[in-house]
C-alpha cells in the first residue's frame, strides 16, 4: 500500500505550523506576539489550498488509514474554515483578556489536525487518535484563562469526563476488533456483511462507541458536561467546542455508522431515535431556564445535535447530505453568534448574562441586527440557513417514514423559538440598563460576523449551491 503523503499534507502543514509557532514564541517580542495569530491563519489558508487542490482525489492513503473522498474533503474545508474564523476572533480576544498567544494558536492548530483526521479516518485507531489529539488540545484550551475559577473548573470537568468517554470509545473499538478481526472500516464492513449472525460483542462495541462519540458531540444523555464547560471556557473556545469539535464527532459518527456498520442500522437507529428525542427535549427545555448567554447557547447546541441526530437516524442519502448541509449552516450561525457574544462580553467577559443584552438594539445596531439574524436562523425561521437545514433533516426522516420523530422534532423546535426570541426581545424591547463600558468591535471580529451573516442568509435563500456540494460529497 502506498503511503501517499499528499493525502495527509494538510494535517502535516498544520502540525508544522503548530510546532513553528511554539518555536517562534521566545523569539517574538511580547508586544508583537499577536502576529503569531496570523502565522496560524496562514497555516490554515495553506492547508485549505492543499485540500482544495486535492478535491476529487479518491481512494485510500497513508497505509490505508485515511480515506480520500469528497465527504472528507467537504468536512475538512468546513473545519478549516471554522478554525480560521476562530483564529480571527481570538487575536483580539487574547489581547483583551491578556492571555498568551503562542500556546493558544498552536493548540488550536493541533485541535484542527485532530478534526481533520476524524473526518477522513479509515481506521478505528486513526479515528481514536484524531479524537484524542482534538480532545487533549481542547482540554487545555478550555482552562486557558489561568487563575480563573470557572475556566479551571471547565477544563477539569471536561478533562475528567472526556478521558472517561475516550475510555468508552477505546473499549468499544476493542470489542469491534474482537468481533470483526480488524480495525479497518472497509474490512469490518465486509466481515459484517458476510457473517450470518453477529457476535454479541459487536453490539457491545457499537454501544460503547456511540457513548464515546455521543460525549464529544454532546448527545443526551451524555451531554451533562456541556453547559459548565461552555460557560467557563474562553468564548472562542466555546465556539470551537460548539462548532468544530461537535461537527468532527458527528462526522466521525456518520462514517462509522454509515460506512462501517450499515448492516446494524436497525439496532443503532433504535438507540439514536431515543437519543435524538432526549437530546432535542433536554436541550430545548433546559435552554428556556438559562440566564447566561453562554449556557443558553450550550443547551441550544445540544438541541441542534438532536436535530442532526434526526438526520442521522434516518439512515438514507438525503439524511447524510442534510447533515453536511446543516453542519455548514450551523457553523455559520453559531460561530457568528459566539463572535457577537464575545464582543458584547467586553473585558473579562463581564457581560454574559442574558439581561446584559437589554436595550442594546438601537445602541449597537450592527451587533444587534447580526445577532438577531443568527438567533432567527438557530430558531429555524425561513430565509435563513437554519430553516433550510432543518427542512432537509426532517425531510430525510420523513423519507424513512419516521413520522413521530419528525413531529417531536417539530415540537422541540417550537419550544426552542422562545428562548432565541427572548434575547431579541431584550435587545429591542427591553428596559435600558446602565450602559457599562462601551463595546468595541475590532475589525477582524467585524469581518467574521459579516461573513457569517452573509453565509447564513445565503444558505437560506440559495440553498442549492451547498446542497449540491453536500450531495456530491455523500458517495457512500
Amino acid at each position, binding site marked *: 500500500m502506498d503511503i501517499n503523503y499528499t493525502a495527509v499534507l494538510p494535517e502535516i502543514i498544520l502540525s508544522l505550523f503548530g510546532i513553528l509557532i511554539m518555536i517562534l514564541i521566545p523569539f517574538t517580542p511580547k508586544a508583537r506576539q499577536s502576529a503569531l495569530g496570523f502565522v496560524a491563519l496562514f497555516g490554515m489558508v495553506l492547508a485549505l489550498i492543499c485540500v482544495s487542490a486535492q478535491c476529487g482525489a479518491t481512494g485510500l492513503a497513508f497505509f490505508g488509514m485515511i480515506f480520500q473522498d469528497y465527504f472528507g474533503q467537504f468536512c475538512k474545508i468546513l473545519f478549516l474554515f471554522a478554525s480560521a474564523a476562530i483564529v480571527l476572533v481570538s487575536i483580539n480576544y487574547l489581547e483583551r483578556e491578556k492571555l498568551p498567544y503562542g500556546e493558544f494558536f498552536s493548540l488550536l492548530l493541533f485541535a484542527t489536525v485532530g478534526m481533520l483526521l476524524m473526518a477522513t479516518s479509515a481506521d478505528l485507531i486513526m479515528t481514536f487518535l484524531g479524537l484524542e489529539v482534538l480532545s487533549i488540545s481542547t482540554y487545555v484550551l478550555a482552562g486557558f484563562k489561568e487563575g480563573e475559577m470557572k475556566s479551571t473548573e471547565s477544563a477539569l470537568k471536561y478533562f475528567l469526563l472526556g478521558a472517561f468517554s475516550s475510555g468508552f470509545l477505546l473499549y468499544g473499538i476493542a470489542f469491534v476488533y474482537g468481533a470483526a478481526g480488524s480495525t479497518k472500516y472497509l474490512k469490518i464492513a465486509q466481515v459484517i456483511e458476510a457473517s450470518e449472525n453477529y457476535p454479541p460483542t459487536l453490539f457491545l462495541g457499537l454501544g460503547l462507541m456511540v457513548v464515546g462519540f455521543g460525549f464529544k458531540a454532546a448527545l443526551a444523555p451524555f451531554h451533562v458536561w456541556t453547559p459548565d464547560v461552555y460557560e467557563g471556557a474562553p468564548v472562542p473556545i466555546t465556539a470551537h467546542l460548539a462548532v468544530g469539535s461537535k461537527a468532527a464527532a458527528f462526522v466521525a459518527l456518520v462514517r462509522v455508522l454509515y460506512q462501517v456498520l450499515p448492516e446494524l442500522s436497525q439496532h443503532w437507529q433504535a438507540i439514536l431515535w431515543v437519543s435524538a428525542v432526549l437530546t432535542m427535549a433536554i436541550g430545548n427545555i433546559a435552554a428556556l431556564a438559562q440566564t447566561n448567554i453562554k449556557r443558553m447557547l450550550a443547551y441550544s447546541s445540544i438541541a441542534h445535535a438532536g436535530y442532526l441526530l434526526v438526520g442521522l437516524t434516518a439512515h438514507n*442519502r*438525503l439524511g447524510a*447530505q442534510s447533515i453536511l448541509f446543516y453542519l455548514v449552516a450551523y457553523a455559520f450561525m453559531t460561530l457568528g453568534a459566539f463572535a457577537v457574544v464575545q464582543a458584547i462580553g467586553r473585558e473579562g467577559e463581564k457581560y454574559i448574562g442574558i439581561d446584559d443584552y437589554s436595550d442594546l438594539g*438601537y445602541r449597537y445596531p450592527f451587533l444587534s441586527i447580526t445577532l438577531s439574524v443568527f438567533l*432567527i436562523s438557530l430558531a429555524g*425561521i*425561513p*430565509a435563513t440557513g437554519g*430553516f433550510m437545514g432543518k*427542512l*432537509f433533516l*426532517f*425531510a430525510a426522516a*420523513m*423519507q424513512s417514514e419516521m*413520522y413521530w420523530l*419528525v*413531529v417531536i422534532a*417539530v*415540537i422541540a*423546535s*417550537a419550544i426552542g*423559538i*422562545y428562548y432565541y*426570541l*427572548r434575547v431579541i*426581545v431584550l435587545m*429591542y*424591547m427591553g428596559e435600558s440598563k446602565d450602559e457599562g463600558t462601551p463595546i468595541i468591535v475590532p475589525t477582524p471580529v467585524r469581518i467574521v460576523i459579516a461573513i457569517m451573516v452573509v453565509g447564513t442568509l445565503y444558505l437560506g435563500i*440559495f*440553498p*442549492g449551491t451547498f*446542497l*449540491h456540494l*453536500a*450531495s456530491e460529497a*455523500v458517495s457512500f
Partner: protein
Amino acid sequence: MLETEVLLTALLLIPAAGASMVAFVPSRKIHLLRGTALFFTTLTFLCSLLLVSHFDSEIDTMQFVQDISWFDVGGVHVRYHVGIDGISLFLVILTTFLVPVAVLASWSIEEKVKSYMFFMLLLEVGMIGVFISLDLILFYVFWEVMLVPMYFLIGVWGGERRIYAAVKFFIYTMAGSLLMLAAIISLYFFNEAQNFDLVEITQKLSSGEIVLSPLAERLLFLAFFLAFAVKVPLFPFHTWLPDAHVEAPTAGSVLLAGILLKMGIYGLLRFCLPMFPAVSVQLAPAISLLAIIGIIYGALVAMVQPDIKKLVAYSSISHLGFVVLGIFAFNFQSIEGATYQMLNHGVSTGALFLLVGMIYDRRHTHLIEDFGGLAHVMPCYAAFFMVIALSSIGLPGLNGFVGEFLILQGTFLENAGRAAFAASGIVLSAVYMLWMYQRVFMGTLQNEKNLALPDLNWREILILVPIVILALWMGLYSSTFLRKMDTSVQKVVDRIEHVREPQIYRVEYSGH
C-alpha cells in the same frame, strides 16, 4: 404576454426594493423615510391594479403564473411558482391597498421610524408572498417570514404589555404552523419526492394518482387545519388575538385584522378543502360548531369590553366565525360569501382599528368610559365612525351585508340550524357596535379633556375617504368583485361535490 408574467414577482420586488432603500436612508430623516415607504407601497398598489385589468375571470386555472426552479438537488426539488386565481386576486389587492393606508396611519410614529418602515415593507413582501405562492415550501417560507416583522411591530411600537403580546403571537402561530411543515414534507414524499407544487399535488390527489390512507389524510388535514385555525383564529385557538390586537400599534392592528387573519381562511380554501375534501366534509359539523361558538362567544365578549380596541378585536373573532362557517357549508353561495366577507372584514375592521388609532393619538386611551358625546366636538370623526360601524354590522347598502347574506343563505341551504344560530351573531354585532357608539359619541360631553379635541385632519380624511368609497362600492355594486371570483369558487365547490355525491347516493340506497 411577458409583462403580466412578471407582475406578481414585481409585487414582491417593489416593497423589497423599498425596504432596502429605507435601510440606506439615515435614521434622522424621518420625513424622507415615511415618504419612501409611502411611495413604494403606493407603487405596489398601483402595480397590483394591473392584475385586475388583466385578470381573465373565465379561466379556472392560475393566472400570471411564473414557475422556475428554486433549487433541485440531492432529491429536494423546490420551485419558485407563483400565480393567482379569483380567490387570491382580491386578497393581494386588499394587501397592497391596506399597506399604504397603514403607512399613512403611522405618521404619528416618531421613534425609530427607520426600522418601523423597514419592517412594514418587509411585512408587505411576506403577506403578498403568502397569497401568491403555489409551491408548498415557498408558501411556508413566506408564511413564517412574515411573522418576524409583525413580531417587531407589536413588540417595539406596541402598548404596555407589548412584549407579552408579541411573544404570544409569535409562539402561537409558529407552534401551529410547524406541524404544517411536517405535513408539507410528508406530502412531498406522497408525491414521490417529485416536487412541492401545490397545483400538481392537488390535481394528483383529485385524480387519484396520489392515494392517501384515510388515517394519513386525516392527520395531514389536521396538521394544515391547526396552522390555519390558529391564524384565523377559530375558537378555541383565539387567545393570542385580543392581546396582539390591543397591544399592536394602529398599523399593526390594521394589518393583523385586515390581512393576517385572512391568511388562515385563505389557507383553508386553498389547501384544506381542495387537497382533503373527504376529511373536510367529515369534519365540517365539528368545525362549524366551533365557528358558531366563535361567532356567539366573540360577540358576547365584545359586548362587555370596556376598551374599544378590545371590542373590535373580539368582533373579529365573531366575524371570522362567519367566514369559516361559510367555507364549511360547501356550496357556491356560502363559499363565495366567505371569500367576499374576508375582503369586507379587511376593509371594515381595518378601518375600525384606524379610527380607534386616531382617537388614541389624541387622548392616549381606548377606554369607552373616558369618552361620551364626542359627536359634539368631532362631528366628522363621528360620521366616519358611524359608516364604518354600520358596515361592520352588515347594514344593507354597505359591504358587510353582501358577504353575510351570502354566507347565511348558503349555510341555510346546507343546514338551517347552523344558519339560525349564526344569524344571532348579526343581532349581537348590532348590539355591541351600536351600544359602544352610543356611549362614545352620543350624550353630553362629560370629560373635560375631550372638550378641545381637534377633528380629523387632512391626512386622516385622506386615509378614510377611499375606505368609505370602497365600503359603499362593495356594498352597492358587488358584482365587480364577485364575478371575478365565480370560476375559482366554483372549482372549489366542484371538488367538494365530487367527493360528496357518492355519499349522498349511498344514503339513498340504504334507505330502500
